[in-house]
């Protein structure tokens, strides 16, 4: 089981995911980079500026 670093949601990586692949956390939607069999880290997503 992998754990999302942002929200702590635990989930099974889809079977054919490879290292370096970007997936999104089912619960908080953060973009995660697969770093190992059951490990992910937050993918460097540039925060779009709203210009508000």
């Amino acid at each position, binding site marked *: 089981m992998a754990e999302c*670093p*942002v*929200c*702590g*949601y635990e989930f099974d990586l889809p079977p054919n995911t490879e290292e370096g692949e970007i997936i999104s956390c089912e*619960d*908080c*939607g*953060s*973009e995660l980079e697969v770093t190992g069999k059951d490990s992910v880290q937050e993918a460097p*997503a540039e*925060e*779009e500026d709203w210009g508000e």
Partner: protein
Amino acid sequence: MKVSIVGASGYGGGELLRLLLQHPHVEVHQCTSERNAGKPVTRLHPNLRKQTKMNFARIAELEEVDCIFVALPHTEAMKRFHQFSVRADRIVDLSADFRLKDPETYKHWYGTDHLLPERLPEFVYGNVELHREEMKTAKYISGAGCNATATILGLWPLFKSGLADSAYPVVAEAKCGSSEGGNRASEASHHPERSGCVRSYKPTGHRHAAEMAQELGTPVHFSATSIEMVRGILVTAHLFVKEGVAEKDIWKTYRQVYGDEPFIRIIKEKQGIYRYPEPKLLSGTNYCDIGFEMDGNRLVVMSAIDNLMKGAAGQAVHAMNVMCGFEETAGLGFAGLHPI
């Protein structure tokens, strides 16, 4: 199952009628309005044209049904309770008459003695997420206030789990729409005066604060500002969490408490236009969207609802579904519009 709506000419009654006319397990038997008796309901609810040919009846003409929804002005449900309880086993009251468990608190906030204090324990407070088990065996439901609902649903998991630090004050500020005032026109709701307002209409002393304290077990310092909006509430709550609580713990708490709730969505995203809860997207839906951000151990929680739906009619139908054993989302599946 047969249901009737008492006080069906107002915005809350009209929204109830819209939902119940399309509810898979329910047939609307009568809709009452003393002022509009004999008139077609579509006169007051033009969106229902071609949906129904019903006319308004009088309360005196009420016939026996399985459930009566009461959407009368405050104190009316209390005064006429007996007229309803003899005609239906189940009652869902949208007013504030039976919300507060303590008659003294009621008197303090509503300036009048409660007429049926002995009935108060029989009414279950209308937030299904907090009172589902009690509702399964209840006969009477009291709909929760709209501002209270938005604030309570946003904060409840943090108090239930003990993450919130109640040593510090909790501040909640609601941005509200004009439909909260109901369909009676007034000087202040006259379009040239109301349009474009950012009106601090209740900086302090809003009655809903009493319900928030009752349900959260802690006082909430509540203010309401009405803005350019017809439907919708966005509450921004400001509180502190205990030392050492991290963002992950907040996510986990909401997931544990609300995990499979059909009408709660956690909205906290880093991309897209709507990254936090947005009330206009919820118009006509029964959703409460909740988002949050941390700043050290200070927490800001944002919660949005449609005051006429999750804050009134939608919540009432949801509670009826639980009380009568229907699937909870029956009649409440509308997804909301975008763009709107």
